[in-house]
């Protein structure tokens, strides 16, 4: 292979733009991948990674920009075309046919034929040969579903290779794998590299990127903000670029509507110790006192949402203890947690928040309904009074309580969801990215509201990816990294740099004043 003079890169996507109705998804995004290079693609939620990959693989059409692949300008119309052109994609959730054999999956759609019938012997032989190249020896006639997820992914890789792919895109391939399986996948990636196949690798686990990738492209807000060699960029710089922070400038206040100051934290409300759940949580601990806002920081996949869901009884944990008012509790369902006075405003409004066809009134009162009803009959006047009160208090813009909630803007939907929990007068509110994807005005209103509620004695655990929200709004910030609590900063000493350092390195190697919780 040509080692010396770097020839034209295998893939060159330049100035890619893409708009969805009402959303500018990509704006001047680019991606360059060299031949035989393992290239990391990283960015926060909504940075545009998936959109860029889908444009590359033909699932979406771009609005502007050019894609050059293997020296030619290409315009893939569908994933099938991209595959035929040499670009294969392996998704997080394996999308093969579970009940068919390994070899059938590898050759699906282009089975070797003889006299018009499938040449089984040849198919099995060739499938086994491909897998052998990656050091995987198994019975290729067994159904795919009898194999573990990692091996299924290897089969997906084998399928991609059998297409003579020049580029394999792996979209968060490791998120459902255990450590040993990740190691196997890395062996395969290195084998691909040795054969001159390029890989685009999307992952949120920084350590994995350093273990296997040569170069990295960092995206933010629909743009490509940096492209570096993996060896030349530190984790901290990587995180800073992802979040869009300049390491030298650390802003202290004035960008959010949170009051810069400490609330009067009272008695301990809830405390979770050493929560463990598969590979997602590996020793997460957090505590919230009445009347304080605790920020939960971490990169995507660090286990922040998992902690909130565990506290709320939405998911079971393998081990760990949750104490409410000092007494151990085991919530079997969100219903139990709600009875204990806990509310959970989930991150994804559409899939876990609103009931789209129900009215503002019904959405707002859904959680509080049992206390509004007598013998199961809803007291309409009480319900209406409560709805009026919260529509006014939160300034929800709606044509009336009968309007279906799906017709509201994102910010107003978020207010309805906050009101759903506030109207039951909770003691503890878990909020997951409360200001994501809503306009600036509504954002400030919601921040001010959370602040006011904490002043009134509510305990708040706030998951946020915005460092300003964490440094300005929170009395304490707990940082998670790969499912583990790695640092905790009181308001007085917290800084964006310290949070980023903890996200990047964990507390052990972080050159900051990390306080262990």
């Amino acid at each position, binding site marked *: 292979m040509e080692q010396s003079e770097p020839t034209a890169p295998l893939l060159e996507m330049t100035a890619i733009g893409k708009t969805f109705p009402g959303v500018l998804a990509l704006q001047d995004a680019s991606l360059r991948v060299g031949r035989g290079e393992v290239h990391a693609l990283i960015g926060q939620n909504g940075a545009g990674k998936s959109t860029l990959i889908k444009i590359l693989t033909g699932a979406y059409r771009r609005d502007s920009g050019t894609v050059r692949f293997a020296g030619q300008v290409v315009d893939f119309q569908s994933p099938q075309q991209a595959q035929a052109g040499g670009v294969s994609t392996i998704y997080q959730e394996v999308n093969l046919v579970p009940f068919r054999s390994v070899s059938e999956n590898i050759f699906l759609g282009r089975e070797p034929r003889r006299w018009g019938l499938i040449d089984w012997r040849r198919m099995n032989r060739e499938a086994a040969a491909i897998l052998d190249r990656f050091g995987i020896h198994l019975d290729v006639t067994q159904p795919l579903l009898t194999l573990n997820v990692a091996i299924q992914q290897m089969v997906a890789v084998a399928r991609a290779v059998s297409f003579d792919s020049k580029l394999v895109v792996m979209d968060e391939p490791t998120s459902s794998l255990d450590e040993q399986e990740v190691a196997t996948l890395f062996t395969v990636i290195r084998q691909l590299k040795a054969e001159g196949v390029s890989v685009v690798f999307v992952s949120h686990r920084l350590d994995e990127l350093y273990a296997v990738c040569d170069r990295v492209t960092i995206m933010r807000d629909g743009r490509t903000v940096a492209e570096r060699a993996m060896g030349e960029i530190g984790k901290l710089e990587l995180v800073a670029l992802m979040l869009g922070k300049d390491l030298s400038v650390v802003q202290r206040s004035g960008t959010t509507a949170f009051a810069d100051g400490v609330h009067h934290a009272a008695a301990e409300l809830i405390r979770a110790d050493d929560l463990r759940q598969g590979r997602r949580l590996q020793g997460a601990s957090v505590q919230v006192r009445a009347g304080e806002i605790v920020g939960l920081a971490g990169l995507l996949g660090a286990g922040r949402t998992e902690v909130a869901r565990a506290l*709320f009884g939405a998911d079971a944990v393998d081990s760990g203890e949750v104490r409410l008012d000092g007494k151990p509790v085991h919530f079997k369902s969100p*219903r139990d947690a709600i009875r204990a006075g806990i509310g*959970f405003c989930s991150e994804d409004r559409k899939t876990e928040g609103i009931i789209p066809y129900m009215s503002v009134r019904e959405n707002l009162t859904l959680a509080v309904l049992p206390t509004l009803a007598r013998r199961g009959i809803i007291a309409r006047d009480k319900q209406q009074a409560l709805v009026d009160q919260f529509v006014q208090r939160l300034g929800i813009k709606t044509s009336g309580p009968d309007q279906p909630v799906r*017709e509201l803007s994102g910010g107003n939907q978020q207010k309805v969801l906050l009101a759903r929990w506030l109207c039951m007068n909770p003691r503890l509110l878990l909020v997951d990215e409360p200001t994501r994807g809503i306009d600036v005005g509504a954002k400030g209103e919601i921040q001010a509201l959370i602040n006011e509620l904490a002043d009134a004695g509510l305990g708040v655990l706030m998951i946020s990816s915005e460092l300003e929200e964490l440094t300005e709004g929170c009395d304490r910030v707990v940082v998670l990294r790969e499912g583990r609590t790695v640092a905790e900063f009181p308001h007085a000493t917290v800084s964006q740099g310290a949070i980023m350092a903890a996200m990047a390195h964990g507390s052990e190697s972080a050159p900051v004043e990390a306080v262990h919780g």
Partner: protein
Amino acid sequence: MAKADRTLSPAGRLPMPARFQALGQTYGAALALLALIIYNIGFTPFFLNPATVNSNLTQVAPVVIVAVGMTLVIATGGIDLSVGALMAVAGALAPLIFLNTLLPSDYPFIGIGLALIVPVLVAGAFGLFNGSLVAYFKIQPIIATLVLFIAGRGIAQVVTNGRLQNFTNPGFQYIGIGRPFGLPFQVILMVVIVAALAWAMRATTFGRYVLAVGGNEAAARLAGVPVTRIKLAVYGISGLLAGLAGLIAIAINASSDANSVGLDMELDAIASVAVGGTPLTGGRATVIGTLIGALIIQLIRYTLLAHGIPDAVARIVKAAIILAAVYIQRQRRA
């Protein structure tokens, strides 16, 4: 985005065409029913004759009773294929009870009472079985209820040894042929059930929860809705109502044939729900709409037969009209 524009329009009012559409969506089925009635008053002899009215209502009552239960199931995003078979189960059990073959008793009225209650409860229990397959074992509703769709009629045939049971029992048959205030008893029953469930869907926690589960199950669970219990409940209610309809069916015929009681009922019920304007995707439901949907289908059939069109052809026309009704509603929503 169209949705955003809607919110921003002054006073939150929908633009004129959209309001027209919304109106049609709400009252489309009712208008169609009205048109059918007016047409028949004009062109079908004896249409308003009490005997004709009663016969139409009597025929539609079991369908409505089953379809109302189906509406609740569909509102949660499910479907219940077993209702026809559960009608056969209830229809097979009742004569065994009041004919003293199953539970010998010296007091006939006790037998009649039990014959009215036990089969309905048994059908309800089968409904709970459906519900538990869906709620606990996460089996898709269409498959879960297919189990009893197949097995239910078999059970009915086994308990009756496949024999036709003929009977004359005025006490029991009151449920099918009674005429309090000159109105067929089952029609009164139908009206009461429709009114009760229409009210329950609006005014009770249960009704809100049913719509929440169908509208967004993940969100409902996080909001504290007892999703599992709600699913059990709707399939249980669907079973109870199917059992009741089964009793009415055999009471009218004065005989119970496990092969034919409730045959094709699941399809009529689903069609009524769909024509009535309840989308099969769940999250929205109209009990009154289902009543109207069932009446439309009944009247179409009646109108065609009254005008001498053979039943075979009438079936084709009926299917075409169902397709048209559902298609129009689909368009309006898009």
